[in-house]
């Protein structure tokens, strides 16, 4: 939760001590209770919550409505739970923690394991080492519970279930005594095993350790004994540390300043080949590349490129790089050429089902059945991005929103992320399967009032396909006359032209969900004007004004 909380604070630009507030998550002087919610089977449930909410009685798994009732007087900030983002944050934190230990592993969902063997001397002893780490965590706004022990299991137990915030066990002989008062949960057991132990009255580790080992294995299985042994140091346990990536780079120094562009190009070409060969050895492809020319007497000149997919295709890369080199100013001559892969991703041999992130369907399958298709499209888009700019080449992702202007998001192809796209699109797919109507899209169901001037009464039956082919970026105001207040329009003035409405269909009521901050509801009508044009208009409930939002063209 703290990682998510910190992320929210960073996003809202607040200092670590002050949480975002209710509604927009920005205003307010009192810290707000934070709830991270996830939607399961159509219901919103609390995935995790801040300490303040927890103190008030909110628990994970509670429905959102229940949690809000519990926090009736407190300021509440509600955000969608993003497990993927939390995992990424934990990975980033693990990299940050490499300053305290050479081997660090992420212990999902909210822990880190550091192998500090032999490092304590650098910090003036184990206690000083732990205190330094705790102080650093405080400084970055993540006050943590730390424990140092000879075994992973013991440190894990003390950090999560110990009495003090900092716990240090220096010798294996002290482990048994340290673990004895802790609940059996501290041994990283499954819930069913904990329940089984509770059935026989074993609630603390000390009680468990007094039982005969043979009977424990017979009754509760080998896992229990393994956990006990790991905690006591009788069984081996290792961590899988994150591996700081070695930079993928290549460079060459000249004997003297070089001013001939042909030589620079040849050098870059050779360096590129060697860099790609190294990439192949590491089973990765280049997705970002920086070329730096270190010049005599003047600052180095750099050019960098970002690709839409990881590649080791030298010809494709050279097609993009060469024009860039020609544009670089060589100054008084270049002494050294340096190539560095700023982003590299794992690529496996091209097989069906592989491709860049954005080439995946909602089910996670590749949009290409043939192996080389992803590269072919990637090559096309890279050239387009190089010529037209990153923002000019985009894809569309469906987002769970009933507001038409927010239902789809245009994302530059180089920014698309697999998991996010998959989740969003599967969400919208569910929405579409439900018929596109839910809390935010309450079809008013009323018939457009039959009026004079050829207005035809029709029953509104807004289905998912009832959206215009062109949606204006901003709704355009229109003047409208209706026979009855809040009724369908019979006369329309828009873009300098006016006339009677020939046909009208609606209304369909669309409103933002209440939990995203209430904005006015809109009653949408499909309107055909005298010129035969079909417009998508709405009446804003807040102001009563009419707007044209789209058109079927």
């Amino acid at each position, binding site marked *: 939760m703290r990682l998510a909380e910190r992320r929210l604070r960073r996003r809202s630009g607040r200092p670590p001590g002050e949480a975002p507030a209710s509604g927009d998550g920005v205003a307010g002087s009192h810290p707000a209770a934070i709830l991270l919610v996830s939607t399961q089977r159509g219901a919103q449930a609390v995935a995790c919550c801040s300490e303040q909410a927890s103190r008030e009685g909110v628990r994970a798994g509670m429905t959102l409505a229940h949690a809000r009732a519990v926090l009736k007087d407190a300021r509440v900030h509600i955000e969608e739970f993003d497990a993927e983002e939390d995992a990424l944050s934990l990975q980033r934190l693990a990299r940050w923690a490499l300053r305290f230990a050479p081997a660090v592993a992420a212990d999902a969902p909210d822990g880190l394991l550091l192998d500090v063997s032999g490092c304590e001397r650098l910090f003036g002893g184990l206690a000083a080492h732990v205190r330094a780490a705790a102080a650093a965590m405080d400084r970055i706004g993540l006050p943590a519970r730390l424990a140092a022990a000879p075994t992973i299991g013991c440190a894990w137990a003390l950090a999560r279930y110990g009495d003090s915030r900092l716990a240090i066990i220096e010798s294996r002989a002290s482990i048994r005594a340290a673990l004895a008062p802790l609940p059996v949960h501290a041994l990283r057991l499954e819930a069913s095993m904990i329940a089984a132990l509770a059935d026989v009255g074993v609630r603390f580790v000390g009680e468990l350790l007094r039982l005969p080992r043979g009977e424990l294995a017979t009754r509760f299985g080998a896992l229990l004994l393994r956990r006990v042994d790991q905690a006591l140091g009788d069984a081996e346990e290792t961590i899988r540390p994150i591996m700081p990536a070695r930079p993928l780079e290549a460079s060459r120094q000249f004997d003297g300043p070089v001013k001939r562009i042909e030589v620079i190009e040849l050098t870059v070409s050779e360096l590129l080949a060697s860099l790609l060969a190294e990439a192949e050895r590491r089973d990765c492809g280049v997705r970002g590349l920086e070329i730096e020319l270190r010049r005599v007497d003047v600052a180095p000149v750099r050019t960098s490129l970002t690709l839409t997919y990881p590649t080791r295709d030298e010809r494709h890369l050279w097609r993009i790089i060469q024009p860039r080199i020609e544009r670089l100013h060589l100054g008084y001559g270049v002494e050294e050429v340096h190539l560095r892969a700023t982003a590299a991703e794992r690529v496996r041999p091209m097989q069906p089902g592989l491709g860049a992130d954005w080439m995946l*369907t*909602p089910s996670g399958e590749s*949009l*290409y*059945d*043939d192996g080389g*298709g992803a590269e*072919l*499209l990637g*090559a*096309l*888009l890279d*050239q*387009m991005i190089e*010529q*037209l700019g990153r*923002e*000019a*080449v*985009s*894809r*569309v992702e*469906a987002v769970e929103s009933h507001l*038409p202007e927010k*239902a*789809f998001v*245009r994302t530059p*192809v180089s920014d698309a992320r697999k998991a996010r796209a998959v989740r969003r*699109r599967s969400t919208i*797919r569910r929405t*579409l*399967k439900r*018929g596109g109507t839910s809390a935010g899209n309450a079809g008013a169901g009323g018939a457009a009032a039959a009026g004079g001037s*050829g207005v*035809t009464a*029709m029953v509104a039956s807004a*289905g*998912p*396909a*009832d*959206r*215009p*082919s*062109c*949606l204006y970026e901003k709704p355009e105001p229109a003047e409208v006359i209706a026979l009855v207040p809040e009724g369908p329009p019979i006369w329309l003035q828009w*873009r300098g032209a006016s006339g009677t409405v*020939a*046909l009208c*269909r609606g209304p369909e009521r669309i409103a933002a969900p209440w939990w995203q901050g209430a904005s006015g509801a809109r009653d949408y009508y499909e309107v*055909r004007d*005298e*010129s*035969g*044009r*079909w417009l998508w208009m709405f009446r804003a409930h807040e102001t009563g004004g009419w707007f044209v939002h*789209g*058109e*079927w*063209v």
Partner: protein
Amino acid sequence: MLLDKIRAIEQRYASMVSTADACGRESVDRLTPTGWSAVDAVLGGGLVDSGLHEWFGAGEGCEGSAASSRRGRWTAPVCLMVHLAWRAMDRSVSPRWAVWIGQACFPYPRVLVRGDPGDMRLLDRSVFVAPKSAADRLWAVDLAVRSPSSSVVIADGGGFNMAATRRLHLAARREHKWILLVRPPWELGVLSAAHSRWRVSRPLGETLPEAMLFDGGEESSEPGASGMNPSWRVALLRYKGLQLEKVRSEWALEWHRGEGAVDLSAPLARAAGGEAAAASIRAAAG
């Protein structure tokens, strides 16, 4: 005497055209049905795969008014392009991509989802490119059509001249793909090398008469025949190898809400003589 010679030349030309229709073109150029039966009948089975096809959108003013021919606001026939993109997508054996170039032809993404529950293949396989100038658009279309990963290229062709369209047409022929260019109505007079040119306009302004809404006194059960849906009039202005004066070349099309596709408006098509045109073509070919 001279008149007889002219008629003889015309007959010879007509027989050459029909022969090309019957044999040569079908053997050389693949045809992809548009899904509009009357249109396909006139075209001999569908639109030629390898070629540039231009679609002129509607202007801001009423049809036929001076406003529609003046430079100003115009709307690209987006629904029709979506329909044709689906045809191209359904036709291609291996899954490929639809490339939309130029913001004028970008659809609201919801219309890329077909049917209910939604078939999202076109949305999943669409890439949108927004160049800032006509020169960049031309470059992007050329690049996209040459890429083996694309199945159809839909682009804003505003500002393209004869040389540009010739370049694109040749590229499309070589790659056996559709390039669908949408163009503003005031460029109708601009010379072009396109294989076909179409004008899309809004239907008549008045409320549709009952004769057009109902067929023989009974309400039609065909989709899109109610007259209560967005509709367009589509006129074929040019189709290489086809003498337009001898066939019916204007149709009415309607947006089919349920399917998210464009259908031929059956009553309107019959009223416009689509069946008769198809019969005449079949007779000429046979």
